[in-house]
């Protein structure tokens, strides 16, 4: 059901319009680059132009001689205390090299910050940065993760005896037996290439340090203000209670801003040095090397299957390129891959090994989907390879392997408890909508026009609602997974909702207002939502991993319930009855069966504030706070069907039809869900068709701008048919799951499977991404020669 109907009520599930929009369409959005503080100076960074080099000396004299230049800071002069910037396995079995805020003795990737210039304006800061002379001695470089594991490979960090960061391993007891007994083995190598999250707003921040009070305010474009605050206090050596991190409007994240970055610490420390606010805004070209990348995983599958295509055992070996350092969650991303290796299939026996590796490249971390697109893309390619090998239809092989509806809750071979699922249903609906059965006629018709036409499926499940804190702890992540909310009713009956989630396009102000209207009867328009400012939230874990609704939304739901119950006690007191005599009407507490004896939530908000007469033991004001730690993850799922046409002359791949049937449980804001699916699919399409972050062998960035790194434009997008099925989550009382990454997780394999199917007529059995025309043309030449 594509949502075009417009309801106005404003409750859960209503097709309301976003309350965020007006400031953005009028140009009144306030992103970090729009902020000006009195006396503010501007920073530019001098970055390594080598993939790996010893820094002999830095000569800043020419820069310092320029009028308007206030300081040139280096590792020796920037006042910071430490540089371990990862929350993953602190002190655990992961190699965690120190990440100096400005490079110390060595620069280990192109773009690593080496010095920082502070000047009157941005143009001058850039000029002065260019005038800083750094004397480097280049040393050997390794950029490819598999090569980095070979004996004798250059060491990214000389203090370790290899480039191995950590090995993740998980083997079920029955695996060896099951694989040995399987009548057929099918192998596949899949490369999930390096990509860049590429929000349209680059990163940027302003540090404002008060030398008199020791307080520091950091304005930064982030998804995780509180993580940033914690790390600013550690890195800059100040009390966490003196640090305030403010998130203004954020122009997209996609994982790029789910991190704590050197520049965020550097502007704080530099502000301390110069005694004035310091602003840094990342250039796009700088973004290509200074902001995390994602993916970059090479996978080796071996499936033991029976004659019917049922997988009996699955072996998965992968090498994950972590880049030169571990960022906030780098070592944890491939944990998510590990979790999701079996996908939506009932595979009891697995052997999984993921080796994480240092290379002389920008660190990788969460990029929309974060570890899960890698798992889904791989297993969905494998399902097609099995179908191809055994001559079974691609949909049929999936049906035979699906976890069945009556198996939920389902414990996966990787130890997850899938909450709910109807995988067969989404598949059948998608096949119907996409007219899968009639495809061969379309293939034949396209052939007459000089096109290879193919159809591809992706049936996915993802793990969302990150995360139960016990699980993050078990994974060695030094941070929890709960979320905060506060609901505050004002004497006038309006509500302020304070949330620890940190939207950057997702529309939480709208969805959280709908939840408030439904649960507490405060009208949609009377609710204000505050997020992303550490002065307001006790702590918030932020927005990523499709967690906001399933964790933050539930935190809100629970606070609303607490306020409603407190209002009930107050109402009983004022109406002189027992709380059991009252019923909730949706907007008021009323004596059962007596509509004239009732108190609206607004009346109770006033009475709670005025406190003229409160029941015994009840404090003034209707306000409640919740820290909600989810008992389990959620598992959204669905089926995407893609059709492509490949030009036989040029190799150009065009997506001509796209059908997505997603199940994210109950829906709060239908239009926002559709928007997330659209955007997610196009990000997956970008990876499938165009996007790849490429290094030369000697460590140079070959895709530094949007001219080389191609993201989809309006001209590249196919018509899409969206549909939803609804299987409520059993992990939370609202039955919600999350939808922010589903499209990206599903899309790349649907598109690649379609392209492989298209070229199957000339004997092609596998394709790597991105499927740019040159690559496809070469494959076609080889296949037909």
């Amino acid at each position: 059901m594509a949502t075009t109907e417009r309801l106005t009520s404003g409750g859960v599930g209503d097709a309301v319009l976003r309350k965020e929009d007006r400031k953005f369409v009028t140009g009144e959005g306030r992103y970090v680059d729009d902020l000006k503080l009195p006396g503010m100076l501007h920073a530019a960074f001098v970055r390594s132009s080598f993939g790996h080099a010893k820094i002999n000396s830095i000569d800043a004299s020419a820069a310092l001689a320029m009028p308007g230049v206030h300081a040139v800071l280096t590792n020796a002069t920037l006042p910071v205390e430490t540089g371990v910037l990862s929350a993953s396995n602190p002190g655990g079995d992961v190699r965690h090299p120190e990440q100096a805020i400005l490079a110390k003795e060595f620069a280990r990737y192109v773009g690593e910050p080496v010095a920082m210039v502070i000047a009157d304006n941005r143009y001058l800061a850039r000029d002065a940065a260019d005038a800083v002379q750094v004397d480097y001695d280049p040393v050997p470089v390794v950029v490819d993760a598999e090569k980095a594991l070979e004996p004798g490979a250059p060491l990214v960090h000389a203090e370790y005896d290899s480039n191995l960061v950590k090995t993740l391993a998980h083997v079920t007891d029955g695996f060896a037996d099951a694989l040995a007994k399987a009548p057929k083995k099918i192998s596949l190598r899949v490369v999930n290439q390096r990509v860049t999250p590429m929000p349209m707003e680059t990163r940027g921040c302003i540090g404002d340090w008060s030398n008199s009070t020791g307080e520091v305010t950091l304005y930064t474009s982030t998804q995780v203000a509180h993580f940033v605050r914690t790390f600013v206090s550690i890195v800059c050596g100040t009390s966490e209670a003196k640090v305030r991190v403010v998130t203004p409007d954020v122009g997209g994240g996609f994982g790029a801003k789910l991190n704590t970055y050197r520049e965020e610490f550097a502007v704080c420390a530099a502000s301390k040095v110069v005694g004035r606010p310091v602003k840094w805004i990342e250039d796009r070209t700088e973004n290509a090397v200074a902001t995390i990348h994602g993916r970059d995983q090479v996978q080796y599958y071996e499936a033991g299957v029976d004659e019917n295509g049922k997988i009996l055992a699955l072996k998965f070996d992968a090498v994950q390129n972590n880049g030169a350092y571990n960022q906030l969650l780098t070592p944890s991303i491939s944990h998510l891959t590990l979790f999701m290796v079996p996908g939506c299939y009932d595979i009891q026996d697995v052997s999984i090994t993921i080796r994480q590796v240092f290379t002389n490249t920008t660190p990788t971390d969460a990029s929309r989907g974060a570890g899960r697109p890698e798992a889904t893309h791989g297993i969905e390619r494998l399902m097609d390879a099995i179908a191809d090998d055994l001559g079974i239809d691609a949909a049929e092989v999936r049906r035979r392997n699906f976890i069945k509806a009556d198996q939920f809750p389902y414990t996966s071979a990787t130890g997850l408890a899938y909450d709910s699922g109807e995988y067969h249903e989404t598949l059948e609906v998608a096949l119907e909508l996409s007219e899968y059965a009639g495809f061969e006629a379309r293939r034949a018709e396209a052939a007459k026009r000089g096109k290879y036409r193919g159809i591809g499926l992706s049936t996915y499940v993802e793990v969302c609602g990150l995360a139960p804190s016990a699980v993050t702890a078990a994974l060695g992540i030094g941070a929890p997974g709960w979320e905060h909310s506060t609901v505050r009713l004002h004497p006038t009956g309006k509500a302020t909702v304070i949330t620890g989630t940190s939207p950057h396009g997702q529309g939480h102000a709208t969805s959280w207002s709908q939840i408030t209207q439904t649960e507490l009867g405060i009208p949609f328009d009377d609710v204000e939502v505050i997020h992303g400012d550490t002065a307001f939230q006790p702590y918030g874990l932020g927005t990523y991993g499709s967690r906001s609704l399933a964790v933050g939304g539930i935190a809100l739901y629970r606070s609303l319930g607490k306020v409603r119950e407190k209002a009930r006690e107050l109402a009983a007191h004022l109406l002189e009855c027992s709380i059991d005599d009252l019923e909730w009407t949706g907007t008021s507490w009323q004596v059962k069966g007596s509509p004239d004896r009732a108190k609206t939530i607004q009346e109770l908000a006033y009475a709670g504030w005025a406190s003229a007469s409160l029941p015994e033991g009840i404090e003034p004001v209707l306000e409640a706070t919740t820290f909600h730690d989810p008992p389990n993850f959620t598992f959204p799922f669905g089926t995407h069907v893609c059709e492509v046409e490949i030009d036989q002359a040029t190799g150009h791949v065009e997506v001509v039809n796209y059908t997505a049937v997603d199940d994210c449980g109950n829906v709060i804001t239908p239009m926002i869900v559709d928007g997330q699916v659209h955007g997610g699919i196009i990000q997956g399409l970008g990876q499938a068709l165009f996007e790849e972050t490429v290094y030369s062998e000697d460590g140079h960035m070959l895709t530094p701008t949007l001219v080389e790194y191609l993201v989809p434009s309006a001209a590249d997008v196919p018509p899409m048919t969206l549909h939803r099925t609804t299987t409520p989550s059993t992990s939370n009382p609202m039955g919600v799951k999350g939808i922010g990454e589903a499209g990206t997780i599903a899309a790349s394999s649907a598109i690649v499977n379609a392209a492989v199917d298209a070229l199957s007529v000339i004997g092609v059995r596998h394709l790597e991404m991105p499927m740019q025309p040159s690559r496809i043309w070469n494959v076609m030449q080889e296949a037909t020669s």
Partner: protein
Amino acid sequence: MGQTITVTVNGTAHTAEVEQRTLLVHFLREALNLTGTHIGCDTSTCGCCTVHLDGETVLSCSLLAVQADGHAVRTVEGLEQNGELHPIQKAFHENHGLQCGFCTPGMMMSALGVIEQHPDASDDEIREALEGNLCRGTGYQNLGAGVRSAAVEMARN
């Protein structure tokens, strides 16, 4: 190296001294505090900085402020009239044509450029006209629907 220029922005003439190398986008953002025009790249590729110069769609990151001397610029801030949203603004809102909003001003100015100059532009022409405006959030579906509905609305008036 300063030069005095006069640029009419959204109907108001502004006279200011600028460095010759100052880009029009920085002049708008820094000197005039019109921060609705955004910067998304440094290679004239993203379209976030799109404005109108004498009615033509231009990238304000690819023009010097001095080149706008004596000319008229329209930015996103000039769309709303007397508290009434322009049809293109309304259409983006009603069709959920924006998520984070960062590409939105440039996207609307490009869309408006094509609708104003070719009121009967086809869907494909609109898509092509927007090719230079990147959006990482919406997947262009609702955004395209917004542009189409604005075109219809504007043709009616």
